[in-house]
């Protein structure tokens, strides 16, 4: 890594401006300046981009990093269920997510600009139900559950009618065919309209250069998911796109010690998530906003 990445960017920008003026056409060196979005790349372009990213990350972290571009599987739309009766606020999901998805490390106190958590667990009063105004995301009790408290984990709800996608001024975020809302980190300009639009606090901005030590890196990545992110772009939960498109469960699902999490294909009537919706009564978070989440809460 250059000690001064921003200056490097600026120099590169000046160089590409000159190149643009001189050649008047698009080529690889212009990519960062007038970028082609991952969503509109043909397979050959995507393969070149993936190879370039693998080289860059392997060099940056001095170990082999793979960057997959696995597309959405046919006839799959992912859905998630969460049992609020079982969740005891242990935050195993939060930490499994950080490790799996290469989130920037930092203290969780809320004022560390580097810390990014895709899952927020809110501690709430039992007597108030789901009441955000009296919730605490920074609870720090010796043991969980604390007396009189219940817990409400929040992550990206992968909305069918996603406000974040609608407001993005540069088409840097979209919903894939399997329902996963993704961000193109090479295209995002960092305006944070999506952060303002998301009713679930599920979008997170890299306020500074992410802190990701090489020995803590998960080298198995997806281009639309857990690959290392640069400073100044937005990121979010992707239902572990690198795992779920490879037939595995999300990391938070496997990490949950209470078995509160249910995951599966909403288009398959025999999947765990469809069985859950058929047998239990579920509710969606902030249903009045018509975001149509694919994340279902229930009391088991």
């Amino acid at each position, binding site marked *: 890594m250059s000690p001064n990445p921003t200056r490097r960017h600026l120099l590169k920008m000046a160089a590409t401006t000159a190149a643009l003026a001189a050649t008047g056409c698009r080529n690889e060196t212009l990519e960062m300046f007038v*970028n082609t979005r991952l969503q509109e790349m043909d397979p050959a372009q995507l393969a070149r981009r993936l190879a370039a990213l693998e080289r860059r990350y392997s060099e940056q972290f001095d170990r082999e990093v793979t960057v997959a571009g696995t597309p959405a599987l046919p006839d799959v739309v992912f859905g998630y269920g969460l049992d609020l009766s079982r969740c005891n606020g242990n935050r195993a999901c939060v930490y499994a997510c950080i490790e799996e998805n290469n989130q920037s490390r930092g203290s969780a106190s809320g004022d560390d600009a580097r810390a990014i958590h895709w899952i927020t667990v809110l501690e709430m009063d039992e007597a108030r139900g789901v009441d*955000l105004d009296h919730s605490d995301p920074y609870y720090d009790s010796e043991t969980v559950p604390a007396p009189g408290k219940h817990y409400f984990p929040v992550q990206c709800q992968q909305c069918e009618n996603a406000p974040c996608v609608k*407001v993005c001024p540069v088409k840097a975020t979209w919903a894939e065919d399997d329902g996963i809302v993704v961000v193109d980190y090479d295209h995002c300009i960092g305006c944070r309209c999506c952060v*303002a639009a998301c009713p679930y606090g599920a979008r997170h901005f890299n*306020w500074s250069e992410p802190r990701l030590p090489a020995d803590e890196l998960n080298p198995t990545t997806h281009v639309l998911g857990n690959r290392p992110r640069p400073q100044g772009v937005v990121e979010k939960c992707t239902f572990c796109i690198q795992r779920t498109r490879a037939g595995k469960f999300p990391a938070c699902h496997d990490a949950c010690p209470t078995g509160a999490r249910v995951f599966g294909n909403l288009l398959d009537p025999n999947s765990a998530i469809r069985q859950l919706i058929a047998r239990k009564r579920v509710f969606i978070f902030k249903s009045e906003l018509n975001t149509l989440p694919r994340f279902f809460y229930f009391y088991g």
Partner: protein
Amino acid sequence: MSFLHAFRRFSSRSLSVGLRGSPAYLAWLVCCVVMIAIGAYAYSHQLRVGLAATGMRDQVSWGFYIGNFTMLVGVAAAAVILVIPAYVYHWKPIKEIVILGELLAISAIVMCMLFVTVDLGRPERLLHIIPLIGTTNVPSSLLGWDVIVLNGYFLLNLSVVTYMLVSLFRGRQPNPRIFMPMVLLSIPAAVAIHSVTAFVYNGLPGRPFWNAAILAPRFLVSAFCSGPAVMLIVLQILQRSTRIKLKREAIWKIAELMAYAMFVNLFFLGAEVFKEVYSDTHHLKHLEYLFVGLEGKTALVPWAWTSVALNVIAFVLFLVPRTRKDVRTLNIGCVMIFAGVFIEKGIGLVVPGFTPSVLGEIYEYSPTWTEIGVSLGIFGVGALLFTFTSRVAIAVTNGELVMRPDTVA
């Protein structure tokens, strides 16, 4: 001789005129340059450490920059809207009012664009948002629309003043059949830039503080207060330092119109406060944070009440004919209105929309020195641009800067 040829001569001559002037004028130029230098230093720091150098975080993800942007869109819109009463009441010198209003609009729009740019996490990718070059997400994204209307408005105003000034420079009267359609078009465009900017906030149902239909109307009426306030001060400075003579009645009429606008602004605020307080739902939290604070966090409270007090006092000053016609109270009123709207549309609009956050957290935002420094620099750019261009414009309109026959090639 072609218009283009005259434009080239005009550009080189105006540079030397703009850099000449009284010691006070030159001192002001130096002051602007110092502000820009401070801004450049602060921005280089922000580029190094990222937007972590600001007070913004995920909970309050827009702050002082976007607040200033919003307020300045209002100034840009209202400066041009002054053209309407200028025509209706046949104010002299209407040509100067039109030119200066458009120059103020241009300077304000440049500041708007700079405020949006310094707020970006990846400023080098700015072109992604530009229509035709980038991947502007219209019709879906309101920020995409905002970029289109702001750039359109900028080009429109730039065309009008360039045409008028170069024509006068050539010793010809500008042809109203050419510039009037553009001036008239700039009036709905002024309303459009302000409405679209309001809709950027308004269209976020997850943020109830902004998701109210009164937002765009409130934006417009508050702009009708702050924009003319700047123009009134500017016109008086010019009246003292140049040969331009304004009819006193014109200034009084502007002040009277501002009083009506401020009345509507205060009425809209009252309507909003009533709805939230009487309903007493979860949505009240944001207004509470602004005016009384939440859980002991009261950073905005003194600002909010200062803004209301400034607006109310200025309203009274402009309503009472005696204080409206007294130059001292008139100017005090202008400064009060500008400060009142600056607080209301700057910090007072943006931050409470994010506080409490969508998950109920109360993160108390306040701008850092980096943000204040960068903003100072941008105001310096705007002030320098406006000073310089209006100096040239005045020189042209009073015949000091004309293309002499002996300079014709």
